[in-house]
């Protein structure tokens, strides 16, 4: 099917003589800005936030970590000083334990400026009934598989979810792009059944061991990730909305976003 669509698209492209080619374009880079990003979960893996500077959009995609910042994460009861194990990367103490339902406050100090953000760590619903579904590949030559999960949305609007799956033991470099994001605006308090967790471009094969993760990030963070996906992967459709900056929950003039979320993880083996 896909090849048919591609074929039609190609033909239309030919008919309309559509061309793409690189172009020298001066973006008039602005001054570098401080960027603070962090996604803290209740998982046992090391948790950290990053402090960087913005870079030129064109050219090599590098990260410019800043040196000399200080970062803390606190609740009403406790304050955790984050350790700068690598330049610009601040890790929570290893004995740190996340508490779902708690609101966390991130504070970063750099060159006399103070940047803060808060986020509630919501508990992630239990993943129910993980499934594997067979998908015909584009050329029918091999069978591919996708995973599906079900879970209960708790009563009360404001929930947002991020779902991702990947093969066990692989590194996910395109975390945001690969996942699915959504909120409970229209499904508040309902059971979400057979939600696809596999990205179209990353389907699995027989014998793969697949990790599925469900993050409860809240509606605001869900909106933020939608914005990132819109702005970072703009196509060439003439019907796209005008480019606008993604939102930030960092106060004090920095860019970036701070998320805390509960996370559920299941492992599933694709087998006969």
């Amino acid at each position: 099917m896909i090849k048919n669509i591609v074929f039609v698209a190609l033909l239309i492209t030919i008919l309309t003589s559509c061309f793409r080619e690189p172009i020298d374009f001066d973006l008039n880079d602005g001054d570098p800005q401080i960027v603070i990003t962090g996604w803290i979960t209740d998982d046992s893996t090391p948790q950290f936030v990053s402090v960087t500077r913005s870079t030129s959009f064109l050219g090599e995609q590098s990260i410019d970590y800043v040196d000399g910042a200080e970062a803390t994460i606190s609740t009403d009861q406790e304050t955790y000083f984050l350790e700068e194990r690598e330049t610009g990367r601040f890790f929570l103490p290893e004995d740190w334990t996340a508490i779902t339902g708690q609101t966390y406050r991130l504070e970063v100090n750099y060159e006399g400026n103070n940047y803060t953000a808060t986020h509630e760590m919501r508990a992630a619903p239990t993943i129910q009934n993980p499934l594997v579904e067979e998908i015909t590949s584009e050329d029918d030559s091999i069978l591919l598989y996708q995973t599906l999960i079900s879970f209960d949305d708790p009563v009360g609007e404001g929930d947002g979810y991020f779902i991702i799956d990947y093969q066990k033991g692989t590194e996910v470099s395109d975390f945001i792009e690969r996942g699915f994001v959504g909120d409970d605006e229209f499904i508040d308090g309902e059971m979400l059944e057979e939600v696809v967790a596999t990205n179209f471009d990353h389907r699995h094969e027989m014998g793969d061991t697949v990790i599925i993760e469900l993050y409860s990030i809240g509606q605001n963070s869900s909106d933020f990730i939608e914005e990132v996906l819109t702005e970072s992967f703009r196509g060439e459709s003439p019907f796209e909305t005008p480019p606008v900056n993604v939102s930030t929950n960092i106060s004090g003039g920095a860019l970036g976003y701070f998320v805390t979320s509960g996370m559920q993880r299941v492992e599933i083996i694709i087998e006969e």
Partner: protein
Amino acid sequence: MNFTNYTMRITTFFFFLLCLNTALAQSSILDQKITIEFKNDALDQALKKIQSSSDVIMSFDKNILPAIKIDQTFTNRSIEDILNKLLEETNLSFKLINKTVVIVKSDSQGAVMQKEIEKYTLSGHIYDESNKETLIGVSVFDANGDAGTVSNSYGFYSLSLPEGDYTISYSYLGYDRMTVPVSLNQNQTVDIDLSEMSATLDEIVISEGVIEREEHVRSTEMSVVDLDIETVQKIPALFGEVDVIKALQLLPGVQSVGEGGSGFNVRGGNIDQNLIMLDEAPIYNASHLAGFFSTFNPDAIKDIQFYKGGFPAYYGGRLSSVVDIRMKDGNRKQFGAKGGIGTIMSRLSLEAPLGEKGSFIIAGRRNYLDLLLKAVQNARNNGDSDLADTSFDLYFYDLNAKANYQLDDKNRFFVSGYFGRDVFGISSPEEEIDARVEWGNTTSTFRWNHIYSPKLFSNVTYYFSNYDYFLSFDLDLFKIDWDSRLQEHSLKADFVAYMNPKQTFRFGASGIRYNISPGEIKAISRGRVTEEVQVQINKSIEAAAYVDHEWELSENLKVDAGLRLSSLHNLGPQDVINLDENYEITDTTSYDGGIYNSYWNLEPRFKMRYQLNKVSSIKTSYSRNAQYIQLASNSNYSSPFDIWFSSSELIRPQLADQVVLGYFRNFKDNELQFSFEVFYKSFKNVIDFKDHAELILNENLEAEIRTGRGRAYGMEFQFKKDIGRLTGWLGYTYSKTRRQINTINDGNWYNARYDIPHAINLVATYDLSKRITVAANFNYTSGGAITVPIGGYDFLGTQVPIYSERNGARLPDYHRMDLSLTLRGKKNEQKRFKTEWIFSIYNVYNRKNAFNIRFVDGTINPGTTIAEKTSLFAIVPAITFNFKY
């Protein structure tokens, strides 16, 4: 200052100016001082000498003049003094009617006889002799005087003159001038048949059409283009398909939304601020195939009037332009056919008489992209059964039909309609998929022309306009249907009173009922409806009434002042959201049936012409327009799936005030027309959408909308030549368009996306011989305004762009040249069947203009972001074969 008060003051000032000029004009003509010498002249000769030496027109009955001879010289004396001297020894006197001095008998006491000088009206319709199509804009004038008028949109004219003998001249570009002697002693109806010029290449034709080209300087009209379809047909076109909208895009002050697109922006206005009408019914989406072709079949069109400013009071409802397209009435003399076979579509029109008093025309088009697709698909398949089972639909078609019937001299009826459809579908039984998208316009218009008296013409119109789209996505067990529809019913009446050759009064009223159904979605699973979403239907009424008075106050000064009262009334039952200052929904108010919200607006319109001399004039205009219905489009270009919505409690009507000042001059015996216009336009309540707005199937659309203000200003030059072997125009536009809306671009002013400062358009056609015409057009514009990243940062492996000011950067400049060659079949006047071949090349020097720019991961150096431009068209050759019977 309160803006309404400001407007009222301007209106008051204009009317004061109008009254003042009237007073001045009335007292001046007999005070004109001349030097004149009579050498033993008879009285009638003396009177004629005065006429030729001054601005007055002499009217007299030769039989009442005494046989006296005059031998005297008057040096720098007023006309009144001279007349008094000439008539002092006679029993004659004179009286002034407008600019005409009428010589009458006095009674024994020397008083003027009280017999009124009667005025009578000459009226009628003007037709093309070959097919009895009415002709719009024909100049009708007294060949010995300067009284004149032009035929209206229905070919009707009315000219009131004092009793007497006249030679009336009828002149229209491309037609032989006709002069008719008329002895006007009663009201007379004279219908005229003008014949097309046969020798179009003779330079003598340059002397024809002088009067209508003088109208360029003489009329109050400015910012108006009357585009005849023959001119449009000569312009080289994309895929060789003649396109009315694409021709408009070549005019100063008009910008295309993008290469190949049918949308256009006029003097800083958004695309939804153009009122595009076909036989008075609005067309809500005037494009086929994502904008590459417009909805107007050139074979069915007679006339295009395009207003970008100085709007007459009888037009309303949009802020920036009016495109008034009139369909042909149909051949009343004989059966006729016309058609063409092009690279991408074919068309056919048929027309014929309906008895002796009527006619009809039917015209249709269809493109054959789907057939090309199938042919290519079959060629590629080579027996591949999978692909062979898959069918594609990708086509559009449209149908125009019109009939008219003349019941008697005073009543004529017209019925016309348009139906167009775009279809894109894919179906594969094997893959169990069936997806289909359709959209299109439907209009129907019924009109009744009634002539109450030779001086009072009326037209009553009922029209219906519908725009809808439909999406269906069927995956065997799961199906989604999505319907959206906008419907408009309207009844309007327009009256034109031709009071005298100097004054025309228009008045009328209209009402429009809108029904907008933004969307209904049905999700059907295993044969049953599992989910249904219906955004509530929006209902409203737009009503308006207007008066307009066109008055030639003196030979130099002419004004056209009008006032339009418009209103919008939202109708219940309706649930309306309430918003707080942060645009958050606080609660909902439910209204029952009837009107629950109204807006009223006064829209003054004013135009004035001051003629400097016979070949030049200055003109100015002011107009206020209100718009009550707009497009919810957050994208750079209008898509078929955008929805319209009306003003409401939360969304106030958009307003625009435009002031234009222009200088108009004709050169080379009116052969070359020059115009220079400066405009300033201010927008109020202009809309935009909040960042990351969701517009589709959003019941709370108002919460996504932000309103603010805008301004546009600029200047436009145009040289135009529309007669002779070489015709065309050269135009240059400089303009700026800015917006300021709270919450967008940090509340700072920003460029509108269609802010294009510089534009140059050159359109030229040259008749090499009677059989061969070559044409070219060149188009240069500044690049469109775009928003680009000035930096980026990493968020968990994704590069997030940082944008600067909205639309703060520009695409590369755009330029393109198109050429065409038309070869006509050997001309044989005896043969009715005529053919022509058109060979055209779009983008002849193969420039790859940037349609947009995107930023992508480089293929040579992954992990590196590069800028990449997309170009829609390279060089596009096309061949079209046209025939006419």
